[in-house]
């Protein structure tokens, strides 16, 4: 099979990265805001105080703007798998399609239905009924994320499927393994809670803006308090869960964790794994396989990554060398597979089975084989081909290293910000700290930035694979013409930029406008509290 034009592959990657990153500008706010709305409405239902209903409705309006535009940006991505990644869809469609279909048919419909009830059901549903709807909306939006992350977890650490040499694709064999894969689980909690952080900072930041301007004080102070508490626990959780994700990467994606940490040499290269430094700063040089200007904290790397003091964490240079024998076995596997495809020869099948676990590595050699034909690899040229292919087994280190560090630094910044915010809110001293309030306003976009860098860490760090260890990215694309790719890329960029402009315009407009007085003409009678006597 001839290889796809590398420029088309690069453009397909760029297009997917662009649409995914655009889409993810909207997703985290939805994930977090829904549960924050549920918390506000819970207080309304329990205490019966109108202010909490006003809060739920006001923040709900901002949430709705984000949701509507976010959905529009997400729809295209599911189609992109078919249009731009047809080889990928053929190879893993049997497995990958399942969580995507569940997302579309179950979670998304659940979310959309309940969102409708949430916005239009205030006067039609009982208070507990409406509260249940709000919780179901929150659950639905997070379940949507769950299925996408199950699919992505499969790309990071393929579980629940095996390769079928007769159909030449991976086939599903265990739904439970797919859904309960550690990668899917850890990714879901980290991403969902990252959304909680985003939602909390959004509400806290806009509330801080009102407090600074002495507008809507009742609503702003309560919203600030709730968001600060919501945010402090969420930000602590996102850091802890991030550590767990890192450890999982160490267990299943050694090249990714080594790139994240800029680890070229083994951690025990200087005699003791325990003393290996964790790098705060470095300028990784991919070509020379070294770092410049390293600033590190010794004795931290090993316990941080391996949760031990004497485990050697393999560096990128030895991981590259370890890939050599796997590439050699992969070549054998693919040649045997081709032979089996021709005449169903049992011996060829046996050879393939013996080398199957390294099949993906064989694909990496195809790029460098004469005429891109693995059959033309001979003992004479094999060494040079493998040496070239080895270099492709590690991801882009500077990108992975720095995107991880930005995400992580922001994570610790959020813990500090929410801690101060919660502290002064609990002491009712927020107005004495205008600088803190201003910082909250300016920090509103930062969690979204952290999420974007999180995705760059996860996906750039997974390269060269689209499915780790099985299918290289350059084999996964569709064979489009260059013109088509450039045209569609520009189209997407323009369309999505328009969506963002619309979102920003509407958000600024409605946030500046603030909560509108409800039922000004006929004030609603204060409803009876469910469990307590209102003190108003």
């Amino acid at each position, binding site marked *: 099979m001839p290889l796809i034009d590398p420029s088309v592959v690069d453009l397909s990657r760029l297009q997917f990265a662009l649409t995914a990153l655009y889409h993810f500008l909207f997703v985290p706010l939805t994930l977090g805001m829904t549960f924050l709305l549920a918390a506000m409405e819970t207080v309304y239902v*329990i205490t019966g*105080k109108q202010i909490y209903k006003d809060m739920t409705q006001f923040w709900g309006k901002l949430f709705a703007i984000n949701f509507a535009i976010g959905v529009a940006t997400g729809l295209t991505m599911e189609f992109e798998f078919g249009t731009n990644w047809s080889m990928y869809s053929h190879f893993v469609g049997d497995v990958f399609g399942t969580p995507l279909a569940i997302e579309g048919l179950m979670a998304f419909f659940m979310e959309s239905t309940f969102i409708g009830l949430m916005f239009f059901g205030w006067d039609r549903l009982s208070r507990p009924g409406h509260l249940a709807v709000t919780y179901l909306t929150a659950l639905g939006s997070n379940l949507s994320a769950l299925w996408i992350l199950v699919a992505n977890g499969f790309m990071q650490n393929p579980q629940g499927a095996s390769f079928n040499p007769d159909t030449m694709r991976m086939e599903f064999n265990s739904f439970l393994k797919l859904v309960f894969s550690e990668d899917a689980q850890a990714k879901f909690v980290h991403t969902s809670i990252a959304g*909680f952080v985003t939602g909390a900072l959004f509400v806290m930041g806009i509330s801080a803006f009102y407090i600074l301007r002495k507008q809507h004080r009742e609503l702003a102070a309560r919203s600030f308090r709730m968001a600060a*508490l919501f945010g402090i*626990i969420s930000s602590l959780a996102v850091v802890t869960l991030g550590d767990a994700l890192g450890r999982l990467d160490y267990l299943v994606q050694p090249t990714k964790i080594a790139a994240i940490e800029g680890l070229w040499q083994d951690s025990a290269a200087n005699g003791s794994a325990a003393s290996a430094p964790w790098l705060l700063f470095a300028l990784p040089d991919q070509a020379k396989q070294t770092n410049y200007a390293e600033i590190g904290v010794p004795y931290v790397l090993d316990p941080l990554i391996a949760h031990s003091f004497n485990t050697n964490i393999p560096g990128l240079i030895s991981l590259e060398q370890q890939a050599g024998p796997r590439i050699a076995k992969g070549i054998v596997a693919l040649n045997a597979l081709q032979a089996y495809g021709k005449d169903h020869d049992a011996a060829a099948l046996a050879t393939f089975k013996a080398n199957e676990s390294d099949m993906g590595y064989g694909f990496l050699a195809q790029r460098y084989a004469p005429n891109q034909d693995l059959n033309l690899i001979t003992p004479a040229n094999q060494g040079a081909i493998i040496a070239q292919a080895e270099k492709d087994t590690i991801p882009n280190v500077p990108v992975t290293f720095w995107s991880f560090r930005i995400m992580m630094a922001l994570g610790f910044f959020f813990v500090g910000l929410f801690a101060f915010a919660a502290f002064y809110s609990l002491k*009712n001293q927020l107005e004495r700290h205008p600088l803190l309030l201003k910082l909250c306003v300016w920090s509103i976009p930062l969690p979204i930035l952290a999420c974007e860098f999180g995705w760059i860490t996860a996906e750039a760090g997974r390269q060269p694979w689209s499915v780790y260890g099985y299918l290289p990215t350059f084999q996964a694309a569709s064979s489009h013409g260059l013109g088509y790719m450039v045209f569609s890329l520009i189209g997407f960029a323009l369309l999505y930029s328009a969506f963002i402009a619309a979102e920003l315009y509407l958000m600024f407009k409605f946030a500046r406008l603030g909560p509108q007085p409800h039922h000004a003409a006929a004030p609603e009678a204060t409803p009876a509290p469910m469990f307590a006597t209102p003190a108003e």
Partner: protein
Amino acid sequence: MGKLFTFVGLGVVLALALLLAVVAGDYGPWYFAWIVGTVMIVLIAGCGAVMYDAQHENGTGEI
């Protein structure tokens, strides 16, 4: 009668929660942690609001 229904209803929720804890705790510890953690985060945020109201019943009005 209403109280009995509430009691039975909450009993069912408790039984389901225990079942979920046993099953999810074994197969999906992270999912389980997410459920427990999310409920906790929502409740603590809610408690913060109730506390705000209590503080401001006789407070100075400072926020």
